[in-house]
């Protein structure tokens, strides 16, 4: 096991940030922590990167104990915090060189590992980090986190605030790093990114709701799911919520996702109901549940 977490808890005063969490990450896996802001993802990251001591529980990273072997862990993990935290007044090259030296290595030694990423920012290597665009900052941060060839990479919301193209590129980079044998623990509030992980843990309020592959998580949705749309989405949500056998209703892009309690549910009945409520242009079709649907289901929103 690359990461193994057992019954970790941490509270800040009365707020229970992480509550008795256990999970395991296999070697070479991309493991996603999926959950809304405040779910406890960052706290968990800080504990696993030895920045924060847990109140109780144990954890091992790369076979080393989080508390006893913390120095060893620091030598073998890369951490990219959610907030850009490199030296803004140093140039791209200087930042990379600084972190390489701190880890007792050189850029040349591990250049092959960061090459794919670094070549994209190399034309700007004399530019100060503070003057880079968001996507380039993120690439630099990833390069710095990788420069000492870590075995485990911790990425805390790496794509928050990054444009869709850069996000896609970033995930492609992660896939390539995975092929080089690096275990990656990544957190994200975006459900579409969850599908790109090998396995995911759904987190909310300091608890883990479910751990499984994205496909299995989607399959956990208990009933059939329908896409519904009419001309008046707002009124549609109100009306669906007051439908007798309603199980869950929430907006999903241009659609409204609707699930019904009743096993014998027929879309035609719903159609009639909505027509009675004077909806026009009614569309009802069956759809595959996504991770987001399962998350909403499990978290009782």
């Amino acid at each position, binding site marked *: 096991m690359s990461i193994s977490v057992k019954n970790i808890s941490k509270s800040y005063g009365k707020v229970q940030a992480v509550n008795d969490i256990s999970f395991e990450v296999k070697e070479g896996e991309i493991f996603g922590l999926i959950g809304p802001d405040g779910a406890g993802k960052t706290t968990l990251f800080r504990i696993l990167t030895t*920045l924060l*001591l847990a109140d109780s529980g144990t954890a091992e990273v790369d076979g080393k104990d989080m508390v006893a072997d913390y*120095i060893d862990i*620091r030598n073998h993990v890369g951490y990219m915090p959610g907030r850009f935290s*490199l*030296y803004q007044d140093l140039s791209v090259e*200087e930042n990379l060189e600084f972190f390489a030296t*701190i*880890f007792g290595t050189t850029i040349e030694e591990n250049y092959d590992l960061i090459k794919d990423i670094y070549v994209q920012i190399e034309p700007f290597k004399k530019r100060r980090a503070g003057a880079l665009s968001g996507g380039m900052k993120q690439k630099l941060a990833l390069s710095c986190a990788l420069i000492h060839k870590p075995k485990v990479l911790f990425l805390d919301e790496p794509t928050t605030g990054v444009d869709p193209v850069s996000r896609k590129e970033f995930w492609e980079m992660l896939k390539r790093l995975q092929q080089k044998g690096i275990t990656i623990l990544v957190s994200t509030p975006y459900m579409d990114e969850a599908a790109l992980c090998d396995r995911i843990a759904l987190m909310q309020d300091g608890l883990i709701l479910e751990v499984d592959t994205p496909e299995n998580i989607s399959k956990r949705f208990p009933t059939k799911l329908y896409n519904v749309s009419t001309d008046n989405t707002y009124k549609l949500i109100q009306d669906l919520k007051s439908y007798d056998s309603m199980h869950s209703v929430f907006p999903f892009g241009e659609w409204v996702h609707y699930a019904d309690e009743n096993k014998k549910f027929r879309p035609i009945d719903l159609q009639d109901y909505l027509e009675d409520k004077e909806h026009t242009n009614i569309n009802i079709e069956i759809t595959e549940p996504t991770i987001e649907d399962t998350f909403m289901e499990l978290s009782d929103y």
Partner: protein
Amino acid sequence: MRLSGKNMKTILIIVQKEFKQIFRNKAMLPIIFIVPIIQILILSYAATFEVKEVRLGYIDNDKSSYSRDLISKFEVSTYFTLTGEYTSQKEGQDAIQKGKTDVILEIPSNFERNLIKEKQTALSVQIDAINGAAAGVENGYITQIIQGFNNKIRMDLMPYQPQQQNVKRIQFTPSFWYNQTLDYKTFMVPGIIVILVTMITFFLSGMNIVREKEIGTLEQMNVTPIKKHQFIIGKLLPFWILGIFILFFGMNIGRFLFDVPLLGSPVWILLFSSIYILVFLGMGFFISNFTDTQQQAMFIAWFFVVIFILMSGLFTPIESMPAWAQKITEFNPVRYFIEVIRMVMLKGSGLKDIMPQLIKISIFAVVMNFLAVISYRKTT
């Protein structure tokens, strides 16, 4: 602590990084080079207790040769400038009230006649005492001039009793050691250099680590295998070097611009200041461990600096403070450096003379840095 090559390399790269950051910070260069010059120039010239150019107005009710003689004595004195003659006491008081003059000398009518006939007379002197210290000094000057005038009159009027005069008066000539001409700048410049070194090392080191906290880089540093002592040494060494640089810079300004003597060996000043700077680096580091923003760190640092400066003996002598305040100054590192730098520069003191201060400052340095190191945690 192993001083292996790798260890040194880590420290060096941090030092190198700090210097790059210092010199890239646009606000930093003026602080390091221009602020010392301005402070030494302005403070040394302006923060003086010498009272000069006292404005004196007079009311001459006698208009005799004696009264004119007395007034001309003031006229030729370098300490006084005459603002003019007033016709009445009321007019003179108005002038003080309006701040047009500092002193009013009133010569009574029959001044000359009384002096000759009755061998005595009285003068009235009114001094604006808003600034009590200045008024005292002015009074001294006036008394001196009148005394001189008095002696001359005595000679004129009683030329045949030289012996009696000798018996009555004790002549004395003060000799001011270590600062013969009582040049205020000689006294101030060394003290101001101390203040400069203190402020720059204290403020910059205090804000530096907090700044890394603010921008989040401290967390990034903390996940690296970098060791506590490497980080602390790497962070503080640049400011130590900067402090020593400011010291040299300031002392050279003092020597070449103000002719402040350097009687003792600069080695002792260097020795003392290299430990002294450690005290303030430790304090700055300590403060930054308990603050989250540069603003908080700055306010706390200011609080201490103001107390340290006012109780350092720079502006007001420690001997004239109340006993409890004198006790407090025992814990003021600035006080010891000011003592040492004045002793070495003006008096030519050696290692033996500054030993008590050196021991005390070393204790401060050890205690302060010990507190700073134990309060710094890589994990929270």
